[in-house]
């Protein structure tokens, strides 16, 4: 389990990184925390000709509260997010501790996790739930990509060749929004077998807006419009929870792997959604 040979560089600025990426085309690949990429290299599942280590680029390490959102640089580590109190961005804070272990979060980055688009990863699910914006940097400048179009299949994103993810913008949610993040993993720190993220606005003790997401059940996280519809206007009593859970189980198309059949994944999504909604209920 040793990586295949490659060339390596460690640019200090985004432009420098983009120049190398442009020059080497699809031979080149960014390296952020390496917590997914290096295991893939060790398994020889990835064979980049050139690794562009973006870990020393300070522009990508920004973390700022702006007027109505948080700007989080692509190479901000998951550990840094965990330690920071992100007011208005509670779902992110709830989700981050579920990522691997302390040692993984110490190196793993927010941008790396989102760019990697692991179907079972937490951060893509958070991004989708809160409508985060992914900002890509390319030789022609920056462009914004909404969460609903960023994830393009398992381990696939919609960055163009030669682009890197520069930062992610997480909108600050109003104080009436309640969040919950539930996942079921075989052991603490393992990738989820299935998980649910919820951001629910409550006005006058009823749900005025609901954003519900299931992840680790298929290629990418998915919103649950059926379950969302089922709870808008409701007070989230026990019957509402059942209805929402049933709707969620019915609307997802889970995949099959050694940790769970589609039927089992439906069952746990239903159970997790009930628990998440219980938590946010007025």
């Amino acid at each position: 389990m040793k990586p295949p040979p490659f060339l390596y560089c460690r640019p200090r600025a985004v432009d420098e990184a983009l120049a190398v990426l442009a020059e080497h085309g699809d031979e080149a690949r960014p390296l952020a925390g390496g917590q997914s990429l290096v295991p893939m290299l060790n398994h020889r599942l990835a064979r980049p000709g050139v690794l562009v280590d973006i870990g020393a680029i300070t522009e990508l390490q920004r973390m700022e509260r702006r007027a109505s959102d948080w700007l989080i640089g692509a190479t901000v580590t998951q550990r840094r997010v965990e330690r920071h109190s992100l007011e208005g961005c509670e779902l992110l804070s709830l989700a981050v501790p579920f990522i691997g272990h302390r040692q993984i979060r110490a190196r793993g980055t927010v941008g790396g996790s989102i760019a990697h688009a692991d179907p079972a990863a937490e951060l893509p699910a958070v991004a989708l739930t809160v409508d985060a914006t992914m900002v890509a940097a390319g030789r022609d400048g920056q462009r914004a990509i909404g969460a609903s179009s960023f994830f393009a299949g398992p381990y696939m994103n919609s960055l163009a060749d030669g682009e890197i993810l520069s930062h992610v913008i997480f909108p600050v949610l109003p104080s009436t929004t309640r969040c919950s993040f539930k996942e079921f993993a075989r052991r603490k720190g393992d990738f989820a077998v299935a998980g649910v993220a919820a951001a629910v606005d409550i006005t006058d003790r009823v749900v005025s807006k609901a954003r519900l997401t299931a992840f680790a059940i298929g290629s990418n996280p998915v919103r649950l419009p059926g379950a969302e519809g089922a709870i808008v206007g409701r007070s989230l009593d026990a019957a509402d929870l059942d209805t929402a859970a049933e709707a969620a189980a019915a609307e997802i198309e889970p995949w099959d792997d050694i940790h769970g059949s589609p039927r089992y994944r439906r069952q746990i999504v239903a159970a997790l959604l009930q628990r998440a909604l219980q938590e946010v209920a007025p």
Partner: protein
Amino acid sequence: MADAFVLGSRPVYTGTHVTRRQDDALLSGRGAYVADLRRDDMAEIAVVRSTVAHGRIAAIRTAEAAAVAGVIAVITAADLTDVSPYPNFASAYTQTPGTFPLAQDKVRYVGSPVAVVLAENRYIAEDAAELVEVDYEELPAVTSLEDALDPDSPRLFEHWPNNRLLDLQPDDSEAAAILAGNRVLRRRYKMGRHTAMPMETRACMAEVRDGRLHLWCTNQHAHIARTTLSYVLPMAERDIRVVIPYVGGGFGLKQHLYPEDVVASWLALRHGRPVRFVEDRAEHMIAAAHARDHMVDIEAAIADDGRILAMRVQVVQDLGSAEIFPGAWCPALTTAAHMTGPYDIGHCAVSVAAVATNKTPGGSYRGFGVPEAVFALERFIDEIAAEVGVDRLDLRRSMLLQSEDLPYKTASGALLDSGSFAESFEKVVELGEAAHRRAAAQHGTDQQSRVGVGYAVLFEGVSPTHHGASAHWAGHESCSIEVLPDGGVRVASGVTDQGQGTTTFVATLAADALGVPIETVEVELADSDSTPYGLGAFGSRQAVIGGGALLLAAGEVRDKVKRIAAHMLEATEDDLVIEAGRVHVAGSPEPAVTMAAIATRAVIRTMDLPPGMAPGLEATARYEPELMEHVPDERGRINASASYANAAHAAVIRVDLGTGEIEILDYILAHDCGRVINPPIVDGQIWGGIAQGVGGALYEDLRFNDLGQPQTAFMDYLMPSALEMPEVVIKHFESPSPNTPLGMKGVGEGGTVGPAAAIGNALAHALAEFNPQIRETPLSPAVVRAMIPDRGAAT
């Protein structure tokens, strides 16, 4: 037991917490494991492994790999012209797989070694290994034990009549007669495939010095490894030295002499350079021994009150490709030997089949067939209780062996000479019921979960013969003790240390048996050049048998010390005591002579010895327990172990009805391993064993698809972390064996064998309202969730 096995006059270390001597090195990163060894001119290997489960090798092309800069050689089976297949000493009752270190014309599992690259370092070796091209003509794969039993299944070995390596059908007429006249209950239980997964993978380094082969390796037996290498390479045994440095856990997996050990040795001999192999974890998942994978069919005649009157059992073990040495059928025999449990069950006839499939070879793993027996029998008893309508605890009480029943020979031939079966059971019941009440009070109102408690009672053979596994070696152990002129002591023994604390144990017993300070005892293990021939680590044997050999040798030395001291002090031997390295008359510490003075006289100033006494202060002894049998009788009965430990387990669990997840709230274990030498080490063995048992019961699962492709990567092989392990309450019982040195029994496996049964029974208890069928492990959340009706979560 004979008086030969005694500690000295004033034992001070035995039974106390002697801290371990290797810990300073290990804690500061100075302990050298095999992968830490290096030589300036060392080369490394990478193995090209089969990617198909069953196939004929049509062609192997190595030229491109051989041309890579830094590659020294690329070899296949065809190059090993002077190598012999591994021997099979059991050909009288098993088929012979004819295992060769590299695949000869067929591959029988994904991971089977096909070619080996020797290169300047592992990075280059892996680069080149990728370039070796192998063409396979694929054959249909046999991937389950059921398929392998089917006489029409494709055969792995063309020269066998079917896929059964072993098929023993002892006379079961007695049991059959009782079954015919009574109510009969039948159940099938299965234990899934999991394995030892030590944190250190396998490794070896072979080096040729002065024409002799030196092999540093992670094997559990220096001498058995040496003898086996001498058969396979083939080479004179005197020209081979096997050394086992620090080993990162063995648990049985490292008992086998693997192909890479042979190939690295061969390459070192051929190329004159030190050759190192360090297995990576991806290889370990498919090429190091797997374990368990048993099916146990029980048919039992049941009395009205549920008692088992007679049993007829069929044990089937899935061996994988069976290409492993020593062979791996012995766990099935061990399952058979434990089928009655510590119960008075008068008749038990067990037939045993071990079948070959296109999966990684099975091998040995802590527990070694006993968890399979305990899971089946203890689940079965709970199922009888439910079926007949009696209390599961009372049913056990009505069958459990009481102290007055001992000694007792089980229907399978095990001689239980001592134990605390009923007492240990009652203790865990008391604690288990209390813990369950607490749990019920705490979680009783939670609609999302259920709590339950389950029990398992068991005995386990410790210090078994090696013959069951190898049909060659038997059961002895060795020890040499030499007192040096300054009074310091060198102890060399055939036992080995994979972390169990063997070194400390040897030092402890030697210090007490000789009456010297433990700091003056130097222990030498696991170097075939400097230790007497012994069988090393397996079956929790080292304390009992290694300890026995040590006490015999120490007794000889001690007698001589006393004779010399008596002469020096002008006293009679019987009045003397030895303590803290000094010999004096009991009751009067002065005058005294020191061990140094005595030893100086014995080996230097020999003219001052008592007249007629031979020089020297040393002894070598070997011990082979007399009651240990090596071959079964015609009914398959055998007392294969020198001794039997016993334990009772209780698990209190909480089941999440929504996800099917099991959380262990309390784990209680009462354990009896006879005399305890070092309490924290015993507790550590128990905790570690439970963690492995819990892993097998709930988490660990080595799966294959229909094509025989392994489905479980390391990331999916879920060994418990600290968050999955419960706190464990351990209660000790000490029933010394009358038949072993100091009454010791082994402790290595007691924790491992019970958790599947106790947790399975707790699950049945927790989910009783759904009448679940709990007959297989692992009890993964998906499996458990399927036992719960969808509305169950809401009711």
